[in-house]
């Protein structure tokens, strides 16, 4: 029971109290770039969640069975990023064959998931916190869900902002960042939430 509680706790914190984008600042680049339409944002979020869960599982295994037993923990960064790049490559090929519509819609952002700080970030955090296999996967998936929540919220914000009258030098990214800041302020309200 305690274990399930800890898993639910990880889920809740990764989505709300320690939201990967708005609190911990992982995954900012795609957050800024992709989120203009809600359905694209949702598709991107789902893809990232999938990659994050898979990457958490794979990197945990590589760390536990390869790096630690052979004393190669200094190779963590190199090994993890290679694993992530391979996973993204495989997901890309899979989507191209099976769901070409999504593949087209995501465009350049699909290979860019490799450089998404959130994916490598969650892999490193899993190791840092000493999570076991299931905890790592839950953390990865939950982080992805938090990421999805943030970019979908943000896409709807941006749709309104784009129609507003913005001062010249604030047009484009500055006003977007300020909107994101207000969203981050709102999420601060979740801090200290500890149901599990």
């Amino acid at each position, binding site marked *: 029971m305690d274990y399930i509680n800890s898993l639910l706790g990880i889920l809740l914190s990764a989505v709300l109290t320690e939201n990967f984008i708005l609190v*911990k600042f992982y995954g900012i680049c795609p957050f800024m770039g992709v989120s203009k339409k809600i359905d694209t944002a949702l598709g991107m979020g789902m893809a990232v969640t999938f990659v994050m869960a898979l990457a958490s599982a794979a990197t945990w295994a590589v760390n536990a069975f390869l790096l630690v037993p052979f004393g190669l923990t*200094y190779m963590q960064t*190199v090994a993890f990023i*290679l694993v992530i790049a391979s996973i993204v490559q495989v997901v890309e090929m899979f989507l191209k064959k099976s769901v070409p519509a999504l593949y087209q819609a995501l465009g350049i952002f699909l290979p860019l998931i490799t450089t998404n700080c959130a994916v490598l970030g969650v892999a490193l955090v899993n190791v840092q916190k000493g999570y076991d296999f299931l905890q790592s996967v839950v953390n990865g998936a939950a982080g992805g869900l938090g990421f999805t929540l943030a970019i979908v919220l943000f896409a709807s914000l941006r749709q309104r902002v784009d129609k507003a009258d913005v001062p010249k030098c604030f047009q484009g990214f500055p006003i977007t960042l300020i909107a994101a800041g207000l969203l981050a302020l709102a999420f601060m309200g979740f801090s*200290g939430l500890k149901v599990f």
Partner: protein
Amino acid sequence: MSQKNSALYILRLALTLLAITAAVAAALAGVNAITAPRIAQANALKTQQAIEAVLPGGGEPLDVFPDETGLVSRVYASDTGYAVEVTPTGFDNTITMMVGVDKSGQVLGIDIISHTETAGLGAVSAAKTTAGEVFRGQFAGCSGEVSVAKDGGSIDAITGATITSRAICSGVNAALACVAGLN
């Protein structure tokens, strides 16, 4: 030319990537060999300094100690008391701290070994500044259970860092519970 898709070409690509990775791995192994002893030394020194700070005279590590909270990682014992290393979760990540407890169950002092709390907020708890020392000094002489004023206790939390302060309290409580179990 069909050569681009042939298995041999793909093998060549894979081998080139493998060669680059191997070269990088070799370079890293070299740097690691040079830095690892120094890193280990710095870590050991940090722990030693933390033990000295909370339990003057140091202590010997214990192999077995009671721990219901899961936060206690190491215990050092001496004639005057214990130095307990605890790892509560703060705002950002784990806070590693050393709590000195005397044989009667009173806190001698606390020392923060490592943390990743926000600079200017939670990080004040570990800072060598007046504010930091005032915060840490509050724990000396406490026993039983400590908590921040918001939770009905006597500890003044750091402004804007309630979560960090709460975490440190839970670390101290874990240490006190452990020592109570040892006595």
